[in-house]
């Protein structure tokens, strides 16, 4: 009853100064829109990383040759061999799978088209461990591995790069380093990790890579899938124990290999993204505060302009609480209108960013509710002081005000 009347008076006064009100609201609109957009960007980035996490599958440790320095220049020293992989896969309960990889970039030729492709020589358990699925055909088998078969599986984007499609290229030959390989399968698209894109890799059997292409026993990476009943820490210790033994490293000497937990790597990226999101939202929040100060400013002007009205209302029986509420409702109304418009603007900006910049953005109901709550809070926070000033005016002075 009194509150509907208060709201009516607030709307009347807002309508009475529509241009000024719109300008004031702009501060809140921009502030809320900025918060919504920045949080949407952050949430989008977060979600992208979550998807990568899921794509990585279980806990996988990646063993690599560690770099060493000679006269200040980093040199790669190949220390990992197929024998290491064999040693790791024998008789340990900490590993569910061991996948050695020989990585090289080779010229690949199909018809008259040449591509320089990252070629991975690996074992048949590779798709399971790394969470790949075969879209067409099959992955190579243990028999292929044993026979050093000249077969190749292509990444999802390769057929298009050769200007054909997955179904058409299966059974055909491509030349890798001038050696003919038969295409037996095409992987499902996996999406890029950011630093590399597995969809433009190709895979050949480890033995084939070793004996027909590179001619030595070195491998670049050995991926180890941690057994479900073990832990990352135990698996790391086990790797270190086995490889130090295999490499005959003296106690006290440094490892000549390094073990990377890829999940940990993604997790640290996730943390960085989170910090980044907070940072962006914080900056956007500052613009919301600036908008709030604009509201406070205009409310102070309004109180001064309406001093006489306040005096009249007090003479007619308005209490301090009535007057306080009236101006508070007015500033909250301003901010909520601004909040709604800002929300619409922010959602539009987010979808435009997603469409034209290609960034993943997610406007959640949480962030919308938060923006709404924020603008109401700004209305209260920055409205309370002007409203208090209005409430505390002396009715006699206020009535004399010209």
């Amino acid at each position: 009853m009194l509150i509907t009347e208060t709201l009516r008076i607030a709307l009347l006064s807002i309508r009475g100064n529509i241009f000024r009100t719109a300008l004031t609201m702009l501060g809140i609109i921009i502030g809320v829109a900025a918060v919504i957009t920045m949080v949407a960007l952050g949430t989008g980035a977060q979600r992208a990383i979550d998807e990568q996490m899921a794509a990585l599958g279980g806990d996988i440790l990646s063993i690599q040759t560690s770099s060493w320095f000679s006269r200040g220049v980093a040199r790669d020293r190949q220390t990992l061999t197929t024998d290491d992989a064999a040693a790791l896969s024998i008789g340990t309960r900490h590993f569910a799978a061991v996948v050695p990889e020989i990585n090289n970039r080779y010229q690949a030729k199909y018809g008259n088209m040449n591509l320089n492709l990252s070629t991975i020589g690996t074992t048949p358990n590779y798709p399971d461990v790394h969470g790949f699925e075969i879209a067409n055909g099959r992955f190579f088998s243990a028999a292929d591995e044993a026979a050093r078969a000249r077969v190749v599986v292509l990444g999802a984007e390769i057929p298009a790069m050769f200007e054909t499609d997955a179904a058409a290229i299966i059974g055909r030959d491509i030349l890798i380093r001038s050696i003919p390989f038969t295409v037996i399968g095409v992987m499902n698209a996996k999406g890029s990790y950011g630093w590399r894109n597995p969809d433009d890799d190709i895979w050949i059997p480890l033995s084939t890579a070793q004996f027909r292409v590179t001619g030595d026993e070195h491998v670049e990476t050995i991926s180890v899938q941690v057994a479900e009943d073990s832990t990352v820490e135990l698996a790391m210790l086990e790797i270190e124990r086995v490889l130090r033994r295999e490499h005959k490293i003296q106690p006290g000497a440094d490892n000549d290999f390094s073990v990377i937990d890829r999940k940990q790597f993604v997790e640290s990226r996730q943390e960085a993204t989170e910090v980044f999101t907070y940072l962006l939202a914080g900056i956007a929040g500052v613009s919301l505060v600036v908008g709030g100060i604009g509201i406070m400013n205009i409310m102070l002007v309004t109180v001064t302009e309406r001093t006489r009205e306040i005096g009249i209302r007090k003479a007619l029986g308005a209490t301090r609480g009535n007057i306080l509420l009236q101006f508070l409702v007015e500033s909250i109304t301003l901010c909520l209108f601004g909040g709604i418009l800002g929300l619409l603007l922010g959602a539009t900006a987010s979808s435009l960013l997603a469409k034209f910049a290609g960034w993943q953005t997610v406007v959640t109901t949480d962030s919308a509710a938060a923006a709404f709550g924020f603008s109401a809070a700004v209305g209260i926070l920055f409205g309370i002081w002007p409203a208090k000033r209005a409430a505390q005016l002396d009715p006699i002075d206020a009535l004399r005000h010209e």
Partner: protein
Amino acid sequence: MLSHDISPQSDSVEVIRLEDVRRRYTMGLTHVDALAGVDLLVQGNEYLAIMGASGSGKSTLMNVIGCLDTPTGGEYWLNGQHVSHMSDRELAGARNREIGFVFQMFNLLPRHTALANVEVPLVYAGMKKKERDERAKHALEIVGLSDRTMHRPSEMSGGQRQRVAIARALVTEPSILLADEPTGNLDSTTSRDIMVLFDDLHAAGHTLIVVTHEHYVAEHAKRVIWLSDGKVISDSMNGAGA
């Protein structure tokens, strides 16, 4: 002449009792005693004019009687309530229920219609919209403006505005109508109309206090008190009744 049922005070009920009321303003080291001990008794259905030169304290007395200001000394009872010890919130309630203000400058809210203006005190009394409308329309009828309910102040003449203000003062059925130079901003013909309206309201049983420095206004009143230097220097009945 006036046919309405906004219930007036019956006679011989004590509406106002001031005992040695003082109001001192302090500015730095100097004090100004705007009221230096005022005693006053006003019964129901009296028609009282407060006169005095400017600076005599009549505005301060009006503010104290109207519960806009609290005395710094002495006691004030309004309709049996002890005003001199009221909190800010209670004073607002007293202004709402007991006092009907009529100002020299009309003091209507410019964005509101006549009807909405008259309803303002009822809003603060917590009355429902439907009842407010009925009472406000009735009050506008009493002052002869039932055909102007939807006009805004800017669309009305000075006399009409003052009538809206009087309707607003009447609408809560207050104990006293308190008018401060009610004709100060009106031409003489309109002034006379307003004073006739006051006479009618008095005849209908209302208690009126008019603060003025104009003799023809005071002549309408039944009792006149003169203030000088914050004190009542004369208190007399208008023998001939003007």
